[in-house]
């Protein structure tokens, strides 16, 4: 241990600064390893090293191929001596860091038993590792320049260029006693039971205190461990230093010399962040204001594009609605085909009656719901039923409404199939899913047209009119369908049965698209059979 007593604080600063700024350690024989990654799996074993200055070395044994920095250099046999030797190196690398790790990598050599191409690959890997580890001819930084103290010009230049670090040192040493023990690039230790008089400065070393320091302890660019029972009567000042252990007592408290500087940096960072946040917020607010103003005025530079996008969005929305309802129609046909046909038949034969019943039912929905709940709640037995009634009644009404609407869509689809329009050729009347889908398109045609027309400027009135037509058609279809559902008790009871003979004869003579499948509806068939239309009846 080297100790020196320097009477003047300025001299101490100069000496420590010189030592602080001019590290005198010898140039290492290998690059400094900053980070390492060792990864071992069943099919690969990888070593990745990152060196100070950004250089990187990656060597991998993966799926039978040896690669260095991503470039294949040859093959290896999994489980061979070569593979085992590499994995053994990685096993060592797990526990090693920096210097010892570099030595281990440099010392690795191809196994002696290798021959032929395996030996060549191993030697290539060995060379690559050596070249990766060895220092290159990079230009040294100012920090790496080794300068003797006698070179005053260089020293002055470095000191002048490191005002910040000097100020840190000055702050760390401010107010110390005249007598200072300075330890540069060496560890300092006060064993248990021993006492050191006066302040101690440790630069670039570790101070381990188990005894007592009667004064201050200053640690710069190093670390300090206060062991159990240790004591510092003054302050413990730390500048760019780490406290490894804090089991002792520090009468004057621990002072982080850089804390103020750090706080100022944090404040500055927070202020910048706050300013940026405010600016972004302000910009967004202005943007929103502009958009709102454009909407209010009804015209802006982007208005034409906005109407196009809005129109396309509306078309997509309507098509999506048709598809979802079509899907529900397919489900209804699959599971309740007879019911939907009975409802559709009733809606077709008595649309006025069905609409009247639907309208009445719509008006009575809420009173029935409330009265039903009240009637159930008054009795203890009815309370559990009321709990189910409250959510299930609206759900049942919704299902009935959709079911009725789909039945009306089926009728509309059949009508379109008979209409002979070119765009309805794809509709097969015998297929209820086709007719429902076609009917949905027909019922929503007004909405589709409204959205398409809304894209064209100056046709707002027409678009609005079409939307109105669409709403009326939808309302009417829902009312008729809902009424038909109520009349037929959900398609379980026919309102019109049997067919009168003339209608039955007309229906029997109606040979339509069923010809596609070579099937016809036959005289004497029931209404169900006619609608199903898949099997001829004799």
């Amino acid at each position, binding site marked *: 241990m080297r100790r020196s007593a320097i009477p003047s604080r300025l001299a101490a600063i100069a000496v420590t600064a010189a030592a602080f700024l001019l590290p005198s350690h010898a140039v290492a024989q290998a690059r400094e390893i900053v980070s390492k990654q060792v990864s071992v799996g069943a099919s690969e074993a990888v070593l990745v090293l990152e060196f100070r200055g950004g250089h990187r070395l990656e060597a991998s044994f993966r799926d039978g191929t040896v690669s260095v920095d991503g470039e294949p250099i040859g093959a290896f046999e999994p489980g061979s001596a070569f593979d085992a030797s590499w994995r*053994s190196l990685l096993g060592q690398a797990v*526990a090693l860091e920096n210097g010892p790790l570099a030595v281990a990598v440099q010392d690795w050599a191809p196994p002696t038993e290798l021959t032929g191409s395996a030996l060549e690959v191993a030697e290539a890997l060995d060379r690559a590792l050596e070249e990766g580890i060895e220092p290159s001819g990079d230009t040294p930084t100012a920090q790496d320049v080794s300068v003797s103290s006698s070179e005053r010009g260089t020293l002055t230049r470095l000191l002048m260029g490191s005002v910040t670090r000097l100020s840190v040192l000055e702050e760390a040493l401010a107010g110390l006693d005249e007598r200072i023990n300075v330890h540069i690039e060496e560890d300092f230790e006060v064993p248990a039971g021993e006492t050191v008089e006066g302040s101690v400065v440790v630069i670039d070393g570790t101070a381990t205190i188990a005894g007592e320091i009667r004064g201050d302890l200053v640690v710069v660019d190093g670390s300090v461990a206060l062991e159990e029972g240790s004591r510092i009567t003054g302050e413990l000042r730390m500048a760019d230093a780490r406290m490894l252990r804090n089991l002792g007592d520090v009468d004057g408290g621990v002072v982080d010399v850089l804390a103020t500087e750090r706080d100022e940096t944090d404040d500055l960072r927070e202020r910048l962040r706050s300013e940026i946040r405010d600016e972004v917020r302000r910009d967004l607010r202005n943007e929103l204001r502009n958009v709102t103003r454009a909407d209010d005025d009804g015209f802006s530079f982007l208005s034409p594009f906005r109407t196009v996008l809005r129109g396309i969005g509306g078309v997509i929305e309507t098509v999506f609605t048709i598809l979802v309802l079509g899907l529900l129609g397919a489900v209804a046909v699959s599971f309740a085909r007879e019911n939907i046909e009975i409802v559709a038949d009733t809606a077709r034969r008595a649309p006025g009656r069905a609409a009247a019943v639907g309208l009445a039912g719509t008006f009575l929905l809420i009173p029935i719901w409330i009265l039903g709940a009240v009637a159930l709640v008054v009795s203890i037995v009815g309370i559990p039923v009321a709990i189910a009634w409250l959510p299930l009644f609206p759900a049942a009404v919704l299902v009935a409404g959709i079911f009725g609407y789909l039945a009306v869509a089926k009728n509309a689809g059949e009508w379109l199939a008979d209409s002979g329009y070119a765009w309805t050729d794809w509709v097969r009347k015998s297929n209820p899913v086709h007719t429902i889908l076609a009917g949905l398109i027909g019922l929503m045609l007004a909405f589709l047209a409204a959205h398409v027309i809304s894209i064209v400027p100056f046709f707002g009135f027409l678009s609005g009119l079409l939307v109105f037509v669409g709403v009326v058609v939808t309302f009417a279809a829902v009312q008729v369908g809902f009424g038909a559902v109520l009349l037929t008790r959900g398609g379980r009871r026919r309102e019109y049965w049997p067919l009168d003979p003339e209608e039955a004869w007309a229906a029997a003579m109606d040979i339509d698209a069923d010809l596609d499948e070579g099937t016809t509806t036959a005289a004497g068939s029931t209404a169900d059979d006619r609608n199903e239309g898949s099997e001829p009846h004799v």
Partner: protein
Amino acid sequence: MFDRSTTLLAALVVAGVAWPVHADGQSWREATMSHRLESSEPVRAQISYGAGTFGLRATEEPLLYRVSLRYDEDAYEPLIEYSGDRLEIGMEGSGRRFPFGRRSSGGSMDLELARGVPMDLDLHFGAVKADVDLGGLALTSLELSTGASESRIDVSEPNTSVLRRAVFEIGAADFTMRRLGNLGAERIELKAGVGHVDLSLDGRWRADARLSIEMGLGALDLRVPEGLGIRIRKDSFLTSFDPEGLVKRGDSYYSLDWEEADRKVTIDLNAAFGSVQVLWIR
């Protein structure tokens, strides 16, 4: 030169590499990553681990971190990012296979963090068996959240920095904390959902502190060393409370030596559906 854990780890890796293809159908990978300590500037560390066994302690070596992982490479891949003052360590799905079953539970993460580097530490665990020793770390902020886990937290040495606030959010878990005093925190918050919490207030308290505990459904064992003054302000619902060694004054329970104690800890206890027991460490 190497501590026991490092040696053990190295032995495990060597053992692992010795049988590289021994288990068909399994694709366990072992990886070790480390980064040298380059400065003592503060670091914000975010550590997350979803399922498996987790260990954390301070390293004696000049490293910022060293993490050793065992994971199913078909389901996971490590996420380690260090830039400036931010360190993020965790695992993320590889997207190749849904992590499920024993593969996700057989993994492990063994993490060592630098001693003496001021650190804001966030720990997030899922279904993890965690063994954490925060002793020797220089914690300036601590947040720990767990899901359905079994966590044992120890602070074997006093914190070497000033901890402003420590927050523990515990889900459905078995949570044990030892030597809480060594954290040196002025304010500690503990929020527990369902489970058993075992809290030891031993260790070295640097100053008076305030501990806020919110318990849902579960049991809390509060271990208090003799000589530490404690005051408990309780607000509970359907919770049994065993105030052994405490006296009630007003709406608070005090330790007998409350007035004379060098260090005092005020505990705000908010509990529902459970039990709270005060145990004394002689």
